[in-house]
């Protein structure tokens, strides 16, 4: 019973694995261990299906960590490296991310470039690992991921450009503290556009509907999940945890951009971050339960719109 599909199908149709809720703070603002929780009611909220626990993601991870591992005959060491690199990249990204106005573990001019490229490196290794299994389905997943990344990477960099570079800041932490002292009219439009851009990216980069449907039962329609069909046990746990952290990363990033608009104190900002993350998770749930996946050839346009929003946000700086 070790096929990677065994545990998935056991979850039933209302099975949900993503979305985040909790971020436990271990130290006063510097050392955090970002922990990913579970957003309660994606589909259940709208369609009154069976509710599942807030901590379902953790239960799954716990279960996976207690399983053995099955490797494909075809794979080499690279396949074993990929889950580690994905999780390490997500951990570094979350350590870098400012939270509720508190600076991340490290911050330097151009730090966002390192984070974007670390995510890129994790994606690269994951694509290689999926091709390593010699599976047609996983090759397909890698192929789609590579194509969509062509649109997502510029969008991500332009998004950071709109928030950090164009207003003349040196890092995200710096951008947040500067935005705290600017008026709503100066920063509001840029923040809104960048937030929309990042939200589209959050959906695309974390294999959510309308780009990807991780809970589908048809491998032919998958993107990200198709790439990890042959991962099992602790390896799969690492990958799942890495993608939960990545989703958390994007939500908190959006919160970081929006919150300075409200000029509030530290405690309020931390609470506000949780609130915004919760709202975004609910929004993702509403999107997921109200629409279907886009046709594959429409996806580049969808991700391209994120780049367009960021592009407009940058140009606005020149006009305002």
């Amino acid at each position, binding site marked *: 019973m*070790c096929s990677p599909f065994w545990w998935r199908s056991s979850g039933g149709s209302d099975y949900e694995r993503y979305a985040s809720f909790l971020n436990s703070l271990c130290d006063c603002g510097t050392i955090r261990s970002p922990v990913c929780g579970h957003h309660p009611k994606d589909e259940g909220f709208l369609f009154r299906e069976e509710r599942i626990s807030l901590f379902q993601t953790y239960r799954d991870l716990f279960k996976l960590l207690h399983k053995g591992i099955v490797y494909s005959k075809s794979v080499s060491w690279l396949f074993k490296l990929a889950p*580690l690199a994905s999780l*390490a990249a997500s951990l570094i990204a979350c350590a870098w991310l400012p939270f509720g106005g508190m600076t991340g573990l490290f911050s330097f001019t151009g*730090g966002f470039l390192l984070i974007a*490229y670390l995510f890129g490196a994790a994606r690269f290794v994951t*694509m290689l690992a999926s091709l390593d299994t010699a599976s*047609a389905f996983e090759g397909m997943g890698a*192929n789609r991921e590579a194509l969509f990344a062509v649109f997502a990477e510029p969008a991500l960099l332009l998004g950071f450009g709109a928030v950090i570079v164009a207003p003349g800041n040196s890092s995200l932490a710096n951008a947040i503290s500067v935005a705290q002292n600017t008026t709503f009219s100066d920063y509001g439009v840029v923040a809104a556009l960048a937030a929309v851009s990042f939200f589209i990216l959050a959906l695309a980069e974390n294999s959510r509907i309308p780009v990807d449907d991780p809970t589908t039962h048809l491998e032919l329609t998958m993107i990200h999940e198709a790439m990890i069909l042959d991962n099992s046990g602790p390896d799969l746990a690492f990958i799942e945890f890495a993608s939960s952290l990545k989703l958390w990363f994007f939500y908190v990033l959006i919160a970081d951009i929006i919150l300075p608009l409200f000029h509030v104190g530290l405690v309020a900002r931390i609470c506000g971050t949780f609130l915004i993350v919760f709202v975004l998770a609910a929004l993702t749930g509403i999107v997921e339960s109200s629409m279907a996946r886009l046709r594959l050839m429409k996806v580049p346009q969808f991700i391209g719109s994120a780049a367009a929003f960021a592009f407009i946000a940058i140009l606005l700086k020149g006009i305002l």
Partner: protein
Amino acid sequence: MILFNVGFLIIALGWIPGLALKKASSINKAGMISTMAGCALVLISSIIGMSGVFVGQLYFFSWRMPFGQALFSMEPLSSFFLFIITLISGLAATYAPAYLRHYGDEPSRFKSHWFFYQILVASMMIVVVAQNAIFFMLAWELMSLSSFFLVEFRNEKAKVRQAGWMYLVFTHIGAAFLLAMFALLARNAGSFDFKAFRESAYSIPKPLSGLVFIFAVIGFGMKAGFFPAHIWLPEAHPSAPSHVSALMSAVMIKTAIYGILMTLAFLSPVSAWQGWLLLGIGLVSGVAGIGMAITRNDMKSLLAYSSVENIGIIAVGVGIGILGQASANGVLAFLGFGAAFFHVLNHSLFKSLLFFGSGAIQTAANTLNINEMGGLLKRMPFTGAAMLAGAAAICGFPPFNGFISEFLIYTSAFSARFETPMVRELYIVLVLGGLALIGALAAYAFTKLGGIGLLGEPRTKAAAQANEVVPAMYVPMIVLASLCLLIGIFPSTVIGFLEPMLSSLNLLPPAAVLDGMLNSLRGIQLSTSAFLAFILFLAIVRKFIARNKYIKVSETWGCGYDKPDAKMQYSSSSFAEPFVSLIAPLTRPKVVGELPALHFPKMKDFKVDVQDPVLDRVVVPAYGWTGKLFGKFSIIQHGNTHLYVLYIVLALLVALVWGLGL
């Protein structure tokens, strides 16, 4: 300096002992030893030269040359390029004998190979140290010709001959522009010495300076492979032996970048439009180069197109540097030129690594077609691992070196200031968006090269029977891969190494800015080390939690189908297909044959052929027109000897009239 002279002579004359030898293997060994010895000496002198001890000192060969003296000097900039030339030439020479063994044992072929190889290395050295335009052009032409003959190594094949001719035509169009450029400069300066060029830089009229710049971009761009003059690269590289491709792609085309940097010193007050021009050319070369690379199935052709992309990134750096100088923005100039130098170094490391790797695969699996590879990482562990490292480095992923030069270009967006406010926003969009697009396309291309070529199951019998190559071939690759990793983790050390050169070019920014820069690099150092540490930690965790569990090896998941076949894997062509159809309006791929259709399809043969639009729609028609135009002159070439004598008499008469000033 004595080291340089001795080393240069060893290389320039190193082919002579080989002439006396009879066996192919000993000819190869003689060539390898003399190249390595010479390169080692010059490498040491270049490291000394980079610290700036030879600044302002001119040396000359005692040789009576027309229009001046054979002057040369070892400025820090020259030393930097010498360093790269000798490092890669030396490693390529180490690699060559074992690789060349697969090309038979006919001694004369190897004698001529080493002759041209060493002449190429020696002429590249002269190109970067020459201080006189005529001397420079002589070395430049020698470099072009010797590399042409190296490409023609397997000249019994028609395709190789054709590729060589294409290269020769392009390089000579470039040389014509360079000659015109030097003539213009010499008329202004009154001498062919570079010293005179530099001294008269401020007196050069604006329009002339612009013309010289354009000639330099065209002339050097032909060699560098700027879009749309890149077309000879994907023809010549796959035809040449792999170590020659490595040398040409990683080093020789960089001499053109040296040429552009050198010319900038002759045009001292640069203008902003020159920077924008190079920035634009760089971005277009980058996107077009790597976009075409995705469509290639021949591994070396893919790498050649990726060289176009990387030269594009270097041009972006130089363009940014010029913009910085034109707007008196020292930080921008430092970041732009610094990134260009850094990328010259980085690209020479990972591109030669990848070409060595493709040569190793060629000898082991007897193919360069990615569609016929697969499963090579398991069969060739060292070559495979080194190539994967090179692939990650060339895409710019941390913890490898490619990230550092791209990081410098990206951070230039922080310090760009222009008079019109909107221009700055445009600059940010171009640099951030353009470079990110290039990066993502590179990841696509190199996932294909690594994932389809090296991983998965072998697609042919030859690939299944491939074995690791000899240490003489994989050790240079491991050296290069380690350098890529070390530079990626400790970038601030390399900046320290480049500092004397940057300061000699007046490019060092104020100490505070440099400190900020080094701070960022230390941040990268810290976080990439943390990234590697996390990976190690997680590996230990996984080992620990799985210690009592079962670890099984089984078939790949096939959705219930349990007879997987290597043919079911994605192939190189199918991996590229979505992108090929995306850019189909631009490239208009030719489909030969038809797709299988209906419920019971029969065996069908079909092939999609993506032609480079520049080759297909510009170069080939242009060749045709030129041929037709000059074909008209064949009237005067009729074969009647007595009329030819008449031509000679007429020509003499005209010369006489002109000479006497009648």
